[in-house]
């Protein structure tokens, strides 16, 4: 050990041992007692309570490691927890030095002296004074703000300590700080200078002695006084001159030519108050301003240079602005104000010169300036220009105004004839001469119309015709002013019909012959009401499709009806044309019209010309105009028309890109900072009720229908226990979805879910919803909720079906060769079920089987050349796979994004062409709404209807994809499954039958 120590050279200080520390502690104790105080300061060591040397600086080595070196607490220095200031920028405090000081340092800081304004004894007076001063300055200087500056704007600075000190030394506000001795010296010199200058100016003034002999002594007398007052002024508050020129900031164009500055200023001031002030000569200013700011008086002699002491810094109350002398001042005032009598005399002399010579001595204003303002003459209006536009072709009616008026004729005695004549006249005026000719030809044999061809009452007819023309002309003029198209005003049903290329109306011939007067009356009223209505009704109407095209008379009445309905105006109370119609027929027709009108109204897509190709076939569909039935018909109609809605159809949703995606796309997250809401949940209740699908939350009920439907078909085919079990499953599954439906029915507004939901539908829905709600509630109370649901779905609910059979049966069913699709469906149903029933085992146990079936199929698939896209065919098994994949992962948290809704899976089951399918789903949904008021009987009907529809679609899809054999067979399967169900429900009402027909036709 010893030898070792001898051999090695040690660098640094050895690590102290434990014992040494304890000894040091003793030492520290001793120190504390005051033993070592006697050491010189450079030998003293700072030690803490423990006796360790205190740490001095991070890099000089810590003597006692541990927290004492750094923080002083055992816990250590806990870094401030990071809080993002992004959201609360405003709250971030300004750090002060106290944030970084230790306690002892703070304590040290306590004692420092601070300034305070609370003892500003003179503050108030100073402020007052400064304000006054500013006011004074303001009067003297140009300012951007006219008038005295408001006190609020100009605030005097509080007094500095210097001012305070000065005050203490006896200085008062408003007094210049001057050594009295220096001042006397200065004044003396100044006097001398003035005297000298006075002599000099005397020479100049010699030619004009009359000007100021009496002023001079006065001014000299005044000078000392003045001086005194001036010196008593303190420095003026600095007032910024407003920048009125276009030079850059700080640029002084007159820096080296100050005389021009004066000139410029004078020019400006002259502009401002012309005539009031007089220009002083340039020479004067040249003389007066050798440097920018000259001393008061005449400054120094021409040969003297300015010295620092010469500049009277405190006499600056005087500057060039003050040299501006008013023209018509009395000499006495002048002497006081300007204090420069001699200068004035010079000026008065120069004035003349300036006037003669122009601006500068030696300068002449050019007599001819080549600068001219260019002016352009206004364009010459051609002589033949008329400010009002004349339409080239004068209107027929206007032309006819020129026709001399036929003599006033008393109307014929027969009031009927009179009415007829008036009506015809009106019509003719409206429709033109052509109508007259037409009706004349048509009614040749009719004695009533003899007035047309010069018979009885012809004169009166002529007169009426003229009057009508007159009236119409006035109207036309009016409408011309109002920019109404006359043609629109003129157009009647006939004219429009002609325009549209319709068949000429039968009625105008047929009915006039048979019951002419009545129809005339109608026409009259028609026209009369027409005049009270906006002509827009006509411009709008042609767009409207004609549902009664095959019956023009009816169409006519329908249009009339429409007009009344939408335009208001004068109503023909009698519903006029009905002379030959029975009351019942009229009522029926009215309902008819109402329905059609509604349909038309719904069809804003009227451009689609849905009816032009086919007349509204609700007539063919056997429309029953009972109050209840009508609605139904209307609805189906709306649906039918909705299905034909134009594609493409655009919808917009909110979608939330995840922040990572935005980052990877190098975009800013549009939802930055906001908490993610479930984007497409339509109502809160959806998520509340554990509907696992947040995306398709709005459509559980629809899906429920499809869900319901397909098994129904199966049961139709094979009524086994398995089927019953399935139903049971269905019902339990419904358990989840029904309440939502109920809630939905009560609370949700379906405005956003159904774009194509039409107005009337919306009107009707709330009552229905309430009905649904109440009925469902009642059943809940009754306690047979399950059963009622089952009924609603159209199933007979088996009393007690054990779950185990279900499992067994479904697995057994796999062996049946013909039904892989069915299995898949069972699988999905069960997958679905796992949400509410303890049947997960079944769902999962099925999955391998499905896999194998799928695997078995896939080679077949590959053998088909090309990557054929078998969309629908794969749906069933593929989806069941999906579900098998996801269902297991599906635990209950509803906000789990991965959870794929069973309903959305099922959506795609049975049909391939999805858009059609969707539509049909909508149908079915609507049916459900409707059916809710008569649950037990109509629901089955609905289902059947739906089913027939979906069948049609399947047919179609099979047609579409008939190239694939596998596909084909599958579809056969579908159909084979379908057909029994169809026969099963074959006894349904003729409604759906006919609708089915329609459907096929349309497809």
């Amino acid at each position, binding site marked *: 050990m010893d030898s070792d120590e001898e051999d090695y050279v040690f660098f640094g200080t050895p690590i102290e041992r434990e014992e040494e520390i304890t000894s040091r502690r003793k030492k520290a104790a001793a120190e504390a007692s005051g033993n070592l105080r006697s050491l010189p300061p450079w030998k003293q060591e700072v030690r803490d309570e423990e006796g360790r040397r205190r740490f001095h600086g991070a890099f000089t080595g810590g003597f006692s490691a541990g927290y004492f070196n750094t923080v002083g607490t055992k816990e250590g220095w806990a870094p401030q927890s990071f809080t993002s200031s992004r959201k609360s920028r405003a709250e971030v405090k300004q750090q002060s030095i106290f944030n970084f000081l230790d306690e002892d340092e703070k304590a040290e800081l306590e004692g420092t002296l601070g300034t305070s304004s609370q003892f500003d004894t003179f503050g108030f007076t100073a402020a007052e004074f400064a304000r006054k001063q500013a006011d004074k300055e303001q009067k003297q200087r140009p300012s951007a703000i006219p008038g005295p500056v408001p006190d609020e704007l100009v605030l005097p600075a509080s007094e500095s300590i210097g001012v305070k000190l000065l005050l203490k030394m006896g200085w008062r506000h408003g007094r210049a700080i001057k050594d009295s001795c220096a001042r006397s010296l200065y004044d003396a010199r100044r006097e001398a200078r003035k005297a000298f200058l006075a002599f000099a100016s005397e020479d100049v003034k010699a030619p004009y002695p009359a000007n100021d002999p009496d002023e001079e002594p006065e001014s000299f007398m005044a000078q000392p006084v003045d001086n005194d007052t001036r010196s008593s002024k303190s420095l003026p508050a600095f007032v910024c001159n407003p920048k009125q020129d276009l030079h850059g900031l700080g640029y002084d164009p007159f820096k080296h030519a100050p005389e021009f500055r004066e000139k410029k200023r004078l020019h400006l001031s002259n502009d401002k108050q012309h005539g009031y002030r007089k220009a002083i000569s340039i020479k004067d200013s040249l003389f007066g301003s050798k440097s920018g700011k000259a001393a008061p008086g005449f400054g120094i002699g021409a040969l003297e240079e300015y010295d620092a002491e010469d500049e009277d810094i405190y006499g600056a109350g005087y500057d060039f602005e003050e040299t501006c002398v008013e023209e018509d001042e009395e000499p006495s005032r002048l002497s006081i104000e300007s204090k420069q009598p001699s200068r004035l005399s010079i000026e008065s002399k120069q004035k003349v010169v300036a006037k003669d010579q122009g601006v500068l001595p030696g300068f002449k204003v050019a007599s001819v300036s080549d600068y001219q303002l260019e002016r352009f003459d206004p364009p010459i209006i051609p002589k033949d220009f008329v400010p009002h536009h004349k339409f080239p072709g004068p209107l027929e009616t206007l032309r006819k105004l020129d026709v001399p008026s036929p003599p006033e004729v008393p109307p014929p005695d027969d009031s009927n004839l009179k009415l007829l004549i008036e009506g015809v006249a009106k019509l003719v005026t409206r429709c033109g001469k052509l109508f007259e000719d037409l009706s004349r030809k048509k009614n040749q044999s009719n004695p009533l119309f003899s007035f047309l061809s010069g018979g009885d009452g012809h004169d009166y007819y002529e007169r009426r015709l003229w009057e009508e023309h007159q009236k119409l002309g006035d109207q036309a003029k009016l409408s011309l002013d109002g920019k109404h198209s006359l043609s629109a005003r003129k157009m009647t049903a006939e004219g429009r019909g002609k325009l549209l290329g319709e068949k000429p109306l039968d009625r105008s011939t047929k009915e006039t012959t048979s019951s002419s007067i009545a129809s005339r009356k109608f026409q009259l009223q028609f026209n009369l009401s027409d005049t009270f209505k906006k002509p827009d009704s006509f411009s709008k109407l042609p767009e409207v499709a004609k549902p009664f095209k095959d019956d023009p008379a009816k169409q006519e009445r329908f249009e009339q009806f429409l007009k009344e309905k939408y335009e208001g105006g004068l109503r023909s109370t009698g519903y006029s044309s009905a002379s030959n119609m029975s009351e019942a027929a009229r009522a029926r027709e009215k309902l008819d019209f109402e329905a059609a009108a509604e349909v038309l109204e719904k069809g804003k897509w009227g451009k689609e010309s849905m009816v032009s190709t086919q007349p509204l076939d609700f007539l063919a569909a056997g429309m029953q105009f009972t109050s209840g039935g009508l609605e139904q018909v209307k609805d189906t109609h709306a649906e039918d028309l909705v299905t034909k809605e134009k594609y493409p159809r655009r919808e917009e949703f909110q979608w939330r890109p995840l922040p*990572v995606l935005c980052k990877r796309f190098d975009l800013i997250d549009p939802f930055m900072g906001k908490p993610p809401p479930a984007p497409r949940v339509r109502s809160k209740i959806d998520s509340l009720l554990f509907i696992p699908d947040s995306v398709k939350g709005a459509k559980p009920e629809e899906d429920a229908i499809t869900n319901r439907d397909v098994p129904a078909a199966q049961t139709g085919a094979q009524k086994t226990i398995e089927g019953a079990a399935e139903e049971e499953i269905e019902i339990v599954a419904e358990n989840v979805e029904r309440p939502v439906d109920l809630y939905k029915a009560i609370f949700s507004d379906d405005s956003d879910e159904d774009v194509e939901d039409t107005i009337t539908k919306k009107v009707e829905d709330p009552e229905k919803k309430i009905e649904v709600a109440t009925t469902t509630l009642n059943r809940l109370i009754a306690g047979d909720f399950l059963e009622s649901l089952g009924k609603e779905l159209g199933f007979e609910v088996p009393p007690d079906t054990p779950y185990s059979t279900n499992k067994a049966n479904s697995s057994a069913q796999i062996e049946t060769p013909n039904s892989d699709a069915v299995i898949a469906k069972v699988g999905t149903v069960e997958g679905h079920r796992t949400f509410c029933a303890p049947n997960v085992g079944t769902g999962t146990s099925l999955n391998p089987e499905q896999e194998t079936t799928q695997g078995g199929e896939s080679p077949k698939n*590959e053998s088909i050349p090309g*990557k054929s*896209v078998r969309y629908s065919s794969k749906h069933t098994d593929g989806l069941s796979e999906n579900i098998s994949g996801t269902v297991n992962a599906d635990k209950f948290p509803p906000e789990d994004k991965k959870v794929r809704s069973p309903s*959305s899976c099922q959506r795609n089951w049975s049909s391939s062409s999805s858009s059609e399918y969707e539509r049909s789903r909508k149908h079915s949904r609507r049916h459900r709404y409707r059916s809710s008021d008569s649950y037990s009987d109509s629901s089955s009907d609905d289902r059947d209807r739906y089913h027939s529809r979906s069948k049609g679609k399947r047919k179609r899809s099979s047609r579409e994809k008939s190239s694939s054999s596998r596909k084909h067979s599958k579809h056969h399967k579908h159909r084979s499954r379908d057909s029994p169900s169809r026969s099963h429900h074959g006894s349904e009402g003729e409604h759906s039958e006919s609708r089915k027909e329609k459907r096929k036709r349309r497809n």
Partner: protein
Amino acid sequence: MSTSELPRKEANVLKGHEGAVLAARFNSDGNYCLSCGKDRTIRLWNPHRGIHIKTYKSHGREVRDVHVTLDNSKLCSCGGDRQIFYWDVSTGRVIRKFRGHDGEVNAVKFNEYASVVVSTGYDRSLRAWDCRSHSTEPIQIIDSFSDTVMSVCLTKTEIIGGSVDGTVRTFDIRIGREISDDLGQPVNCISLSNDNNCILANCLDSTLRLLDRSTGELLQEYKGHACKSYKMDCCLTNSDAHVTCGSEDGSIFFWDLVDASVVSKFRAHSSVVTSVSYHPKDNCMITSSVDSTVRVWKT
């Protein structure tokens, strides 16, 4: 570009695939092309010289789509094995596999920076995968489609998918909106016009539909070819003057963009034309078919 400049002459036949070729794609500068097919391989070609450069084998099932980054360094491919493969072009090794799709993956695309692969497929979802991190989880799943998504297109800010449910959905990342254009017919393939203002959608009713992206308006329909049951690509020419698509009878159609008239139609393959890809600059086109060939067409 006049009609005479349409690529109608066969310049090269790229043979090598065994079985149907399901997709053929030019790379970004058009010097190379990639094809993939039923034989579970991806092949890299020089179409102008007709040379087969490399084969990428790893897929377990047919490869349905392939895409290459702008810098030609990485590939992504997808197919029947429900995985997306992220390849290194030069070494031919798979860098990463993205698993998560529940069904066959129909289409795959890189974004502009090659940082994200967007794939879509039979499971009705559209998934975005991160190429930069090592996570194999998708960074986003979009599952608003209600049926198989057949095709996907990316712009700088949007993801556009076309689905069998008849919708073309645009997911705008910038504004967080999803715009759904329902075409009423199953959409087989979508492709963007070169100015990115229009979408050409190949629908299963043997109709190509041109949509205005800003308004969703149907601008034009192109008919004449047969497209009823196969996934078939369509595209616009590089000048956006013509629309081209294959047909199930093996012919290629060219339509005038504006008046939708068939300006050219010729028989190119003996069987279904699965894919068409137009050169980004020149008048050159490659087509692939189930007759296991890729053909290069020039003027």
